[in-house]
């Protein structure tokens, strides 16, 4: 399918952007960013109905997205730039002084595409639910999407939000989880086990989908099914199985690249594995 091939090509460029951004400042979080590159590409280039220009903070009459695990900002900045929210060249200012591309995303610097600050974990689901309620009040039929790390689900606020979403039947929101099973200190099950995550969300009253977050085909299909299930009185969560560091062999299968930048040699190795499909910034 042409569409899938096209999305895969964009994802390859997004991965190049991620490793180059993080390498440039020797600072940032490549692992989770790479793992979510396929989903974020699918979201901004296929799944969402959104309007990059002119940027509307209120997101009226369009789908809106909130990145709750703000540390994977490189992947978000890349897809925002590549889908037309701000100039691609601006990616080179990531984490630099006076940049709009702060280490963690913020609307305080007026970067198009960012509607709330994130970084301190666990807050984005609540924000998404509020935005979804506003959409209902405004008679806006579009959806709200959120992304969370699986480690982030250890935050209590997530489960407060889960209760709230079910109680208020926020059925115009699709939360997604980057279910890569690792966090800074190691495997999630060792650090603070999440147990049966699917059963937990079910028990909290959510409709649950699972998919392979690194399989473009599966991602698109699952999101189509999830979208078809909106408007039925229940909030939706998609657990997306991913591999941290996906696409760069030496960054996969380990939590070590959660928040570490590649050196020059490692960057060259990473780029050799990722086709330049759009022009590098």
């Amino acid at each position, binding site marked *: 399918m042409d569409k899938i091939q096209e999305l895969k090509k964009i994802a390859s460029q997004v991965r190049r952007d991620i490793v180059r951004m993080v390498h440039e400042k020797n600072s940032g979080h490549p692992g989770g960013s790479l793992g979510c590159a396929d989903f974020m590409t699918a979201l901004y280039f296929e799944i969402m109905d959104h309007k990059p220009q002119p940027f509307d*903070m*209120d*997101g*009226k009459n369009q789908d*809106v997205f*909130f990145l709750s695990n703000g540390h994977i900002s490189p992947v978000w900045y890349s897809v925002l730039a590549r889908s037309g929210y701000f100039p691609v060249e601006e990616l080179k200012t990531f984490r630099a002084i006076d940049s709009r591309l702060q280490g963690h995303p*913020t*609307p*305080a610097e007026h970067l198009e595409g960012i*509607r*709330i*600050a*994130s*970084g*301190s974990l*666990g*807050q*984005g*689901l*609540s*924000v*998404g*639910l*509020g*935005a*979804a*309620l*506003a*959409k209902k*009040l*405004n008679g*806006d039929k579009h959806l709200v999407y959120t992304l969370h790390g699986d480690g982030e689900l250890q935050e*209590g*606020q997530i489960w*407060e*939000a889960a*209760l*709230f979403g079910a*109680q*208020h039947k926020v059925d115009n929101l699709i939360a997604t989880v980057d279910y890569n099973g690792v966090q800074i200190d190691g495997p999630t099950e060792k650090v603070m086990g999440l147990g049966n995550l699917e059963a937990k969300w079910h028990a909290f009253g959510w409709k649950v989908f699972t998919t392979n977050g690194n399989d473009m085909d599966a991602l698109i299909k699952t999101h189509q099914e999830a979208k078809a299930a909106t408007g039925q009185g229940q909030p939706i969560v998609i657990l997306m199985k991913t591999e941290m560091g996906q696409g760069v062999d030496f960054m996969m299968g380990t939590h070590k690249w959660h928040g570490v930048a590649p050196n020059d040699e490692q960057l060259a190795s990473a780029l050799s594995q990722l086709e330049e499909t759009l022009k590098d910034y």
Partner: protein
Amino acid sequence: MTEYKNTGSKDTRSGFGDGLTELGRQNSNVVAFCADLIGSIKMGDFAKEHPERFFQAGIAEANMVGAAAGTTIGGKIPYIGTFAAFATGRVYDQIRQSVAYSKKPVKIAASHAGLTLGEDGATHQILEDIGLMKMLPNMVVINPCDYNQTKAATIASAEIDAPVYLRFGRPKVPNFTPENQNFEIGKAWMVNEGTDVTIFATGHLVWEAIQAGITLEKEGISAEIINIHTIKPLDRKAILESVKKTKAVVTAEEHMLNGGLGDSIAQVLALEYPTPMEMIGVNDTFGESGTPEELMEKYGLNAESIVEASKKVIQRKH
């Protein structure tokens, strides 16, 4: 002394509730959240009149803050109601990131602030909230003095595109400011003009300051009394103008001395016009159970203390 009459004691939280009800009728973008305290925070009328715009958040304040911030993305003006203790310290990080740093116009309606919460004791008597909130960039901090002013402040808070911390209390206190007053955020309110000492008071202590002024007048001391209902942004101009005239300052608040109104005024004066100053507030200690009156007396937050402090600071004049 300008004469002020108590037109009938009322709780400031009812001023908030009635203000919110009026706002709900005027502006369909106003929404409200409450964390299982509808009766205490007086949000019942709004909830009844606009069930589609009222969201029960349950005992889950962190989510309430985030969800309220989310509704601003969509043009809503959310009011979140709970006790001041749970509206600040418990959710500081959520307010910091999702509200203040994100510049979202969430209005934090914080009731039962200070010692006058009374019998529930120190767990609920937050005395640090003004400090916590005023430290946050972008946050506006308002502490009105009576029912009428709280109602007016509530209505005014919807007009500004900024996060607002609106602090009020539990007990019935004298209602003496004009009904349907025009509330100007950030503008100090001249209660009484005087020449010997300036008393800057906020919240429940404004009435006490007036009582102190009456006593001082009988003793031949002319007190200027200024109601600082907006602690941030602070009306530096009004403060400096008064202090340059009186050259002696007393501050009075139902809050910890660290981080409160007195602390803000001391900063202005230390930098711009060093002046002898006395501060009435709670000095680095938690509260305890008791009636509001007993507590205010025990911790020295009343007219008598203000009179004493005024005499003391006048003696210290250069």
